[in-house]
């Protein structure tokens, strides 16, 4: 490999309100190499590639040099013109348009002699040339929505790598949804790209891929550079070692919990997407943490248990009795609560008052025979204001006027009011400030002391280890292990979180 530098990154930082996502990152990318970025959730990989591809602007103080020239992309288009492309995890296809139209969307369809008409023959020829590169055999006139997700992903990849002026191509989890055979095709093509002198920045959970395709590997943790290894000779445990090892910067209030009887049993649960054959038990008076990488199927599992999505097979037992939780209403009647991650879209009733947001799950508790009064609801909200220290002007304020942490407490109050016994939290501290986080941990601790069962999804490993009594780890849709508190180590959890991606 010739050591010609394509991209030089120096002291790049990125600060979001309250979080330093990237801290003084420096790295070099050489011509024709595959550089792998590794790191756990929130390590800063995505932030870094978003800066490189012009989606985010870095903080002042750092600089980037592309092919000898100062590189400050003004946007994704500008980055593309300068030769840096990104293949996203999410699909950027327009489902109602054909394969040809999607492939030629960015560059524009070729024009007929009469300028206002499209030359469809020429368009198809160009599109065919693009998919031939990856040896794909798709009907050019099929609408993209009729293709499988894997095929759409391949189309997305072929669209990007066909760019003539590409110097750097960033691939963020390109193989997440494609088959082994297609992965082989992609890797073949990456080799061709390397020969052409194109450099690749590659992000993947699948550590065995890293060894197959990578040249160098750089590990990030908490937004900082940890170290670099040769991708060919490195072994998986070394990488894990570097990815974890975070320091505890937050105080996690946790009393000693005495777990009681088994309350919830999940047996062999599979959903129609992602989640396969998951079994676990949760006890009265414990926090069962659910760990894993983003996209491992944790939220899907919770939604399946709660009846928000249909389950394909398996069964659920509550206090030893099989139950059919076919929709959220049934689950709520069985005293199960689910605090969704996306508060705005799936949690709060934004245009409504705080008190109404608190009582919505149990309107029947406000009065008999379906009758209720606003006065009672306001009183309920007032009582939770004191219990949970919700900072609000009045229960009749619109919930949208509260801060993120206080909105989360309103939803918390909702599920306390509905007398839930099993409370499932999905990323409860995401997007709330440090003070509110600590309060949230104390509230969760109190719930458990009161004999409730808490199931908690968190992508913050320190938080997960700080407040859980046991941790069940999911990986690629399967549950790969359950650890007791005495066995918690970052390495062990990360190993389990990656396991499902190794056994492909």
């Amino acid at each position, binding site marked *: 490999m010739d050591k010609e530098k394509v991209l030089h990154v120096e002291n790049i930082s990125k600060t979001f309100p309250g979080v330093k996502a990237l801290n003084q990152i420096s790295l070099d990318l050489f011509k024709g190499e595959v550089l792998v970025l590794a790191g756990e959730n929130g390590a800063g990989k995505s932030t870094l590639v978003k800066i490189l591809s012009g989606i985010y602007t870095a903080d002042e103080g750092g600089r980037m040099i592309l092919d000898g020239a100062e590189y400050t992309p003004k946007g994704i288009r500008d980055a593309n013109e300068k030769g840096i492309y990104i293949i996203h995890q999410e699909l950027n296809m327009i489902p109602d348009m054909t394969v040809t139209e999607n492939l030629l969307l960015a560059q524009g369809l070729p024009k007929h002699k009469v300028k206002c008409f499209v030359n469809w023959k020429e368009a198809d020829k160009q599109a065919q040339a693009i998919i031939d590169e990856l040896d794909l055999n798709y009907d050019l006139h099929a609408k993209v929505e009729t293709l499988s997700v894997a095929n759409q992903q391949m189309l997305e990849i072929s669209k990007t790598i066909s760019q003539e002026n590409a110097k750097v191509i960033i691939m963020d989890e390109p193989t997440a949804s494609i088959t082994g055979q297609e992965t082989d095709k992609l890797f073949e093509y990456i080799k061709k790209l390397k020969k052409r002198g194109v450099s690749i920045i590659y992000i993947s959970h699948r550590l065995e891929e890293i060894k197959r395709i990578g040249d160098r590997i750089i590990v990030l943790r908490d937004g900082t550079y940890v170290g670099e290894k040769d991708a060919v000779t490195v072994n998986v445990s070394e990488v894990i070692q570097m990815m974890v090892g975070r320091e505890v910067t937050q105080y996690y209030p946790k009393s000693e919990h005495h777990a009681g009887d088994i309350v919830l049993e999940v047996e062999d649960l599979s959903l129609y997407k992602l989640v396969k054959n998951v079994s676990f038990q949760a006890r009265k008076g414990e926090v069962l943490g659910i760990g894993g990488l983003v996209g491992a199927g944790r939220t899907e599992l919770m939604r399946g248990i*709660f009846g*928000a999505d249909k389950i394909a097979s398996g069964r659920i037992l509550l206090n030893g009795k099989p139950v059919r939780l076919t*929709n*959220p*209403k049934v*689950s*709520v*009647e069985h005293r199960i609560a*689910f605090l*969704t991650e996306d508060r705005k*879209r*799936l*949690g*709060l*009733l*934004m*245009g*409504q008052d705080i008190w*109404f947001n608190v009582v*919505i*799950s149990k*309107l*029947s508790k*406000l*009065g008999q025979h*379906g*009758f*209720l*009064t*606003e006065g009672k609801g306001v009183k309920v909200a007032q009582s939770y204001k004191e219990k949970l220290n919700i900072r609000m*002007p*009045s229960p*009749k*304020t*619109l919930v949208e006027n509260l801060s993120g942490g206080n909105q989360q407490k309103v939803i918390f109050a*909702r599920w306390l009011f*509905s007398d839930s016994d099993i409370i499932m939290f999905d990323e409860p501290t995401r997007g709330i400030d440090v003070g509110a986080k600590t309060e949230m941990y104390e509230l969760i601790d109190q719930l458990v002391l009161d004999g409730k069962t808490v199931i908690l999804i968190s992508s913050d490993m320190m938080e997960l280890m700080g407040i859980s009594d046991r941790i069940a780890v999911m990986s690629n849709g399967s549950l790969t292990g359950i650890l007791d508190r005495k066995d918690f180590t970052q390495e062990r959890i990360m190993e389990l979180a990656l396991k499902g991606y190794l056994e492909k």
Partner: protein
Amino acid sequence: MKVDVKKIIRKIGSLLILLVLMLCMGVASPVFFTVGNINNIGIQASVNVVLSIGMLMVIIIGGIDLSIGAILALAGIVSAYLMKAGCPIFWAMFISCFAGAALGAVNGFIVTYMKLPPFVATLGTTGIFRGTALLITNGLPVSQLPNEVRVIGQGSLLGIPNPIVIMLIVAIIIYVVLTYTAYGRSLYAIGSNYEATRLSGISVKRNTMVTYTVEGFLAAVAGVILLGRLAVAQPNAATGYESNAIAAAVIGGASFSGGRGSVVGALIGALVISVLNNGFTLLGLNSFVQQIAIGVVVVLAVFADIMQRAKVN
């Protein structure tokens, strides 16, 4: 407390429009504030009030119902045929209300279970219901009904004309339902955020279905009032009434994105429209100008509401 004051102002907003309008009309025409004329306004408003309260419920859950005029007509014809077949008048009307509910349930079914957007669903059923009404009557009015049918439209209770009595009963019942029942409150939740409401354990499908059914029932009640006033059932009755019902709900503060609106507001909105109609007639102004005036009021009322919200935020 500040917020509450603003809420009151917001509620008074449409009332203010109504009062100013009435004052203007009163100044312009000496007849306007006579008992006879006030009763007239009430009677004229009654059909629209009942329709707009139903429409309000559907708008609160984030829906719309274009078929209420057609339901009104079809239910009226059912009523008229039953009377001609010798069914007692009260029973004929009673049964026709449930026929209306059944037609509303058809709308509800298409929206909740066949998952059509409400606009399209009720556009389709408008054709179906109206076409059915025309088909079974051959397009001709059903007349020569028993004389007692006029009791509903032209009689009175304790000096208050019956249409106004019915309108007030409907308004009070739906007000209580929307304010003091779990079902009624859940409609606001559904309109604010359907998915969050579902995940809170509310039967969103059942409640949506019930709402369209109630809407159909109320459209038929309006049909009964109209039948009582005209003593004839027309297959083409109430064409375009849905737009007046939407206008009334919206003038009264209902939001098309769902989650907001009140019975008092819809009542005031319907009265605004009736006062405009009545006043223009009294002043001998061109009736086409009425339509322009109603349109202007709708735009201005909603614009004022938007401005107020922008200020609050």
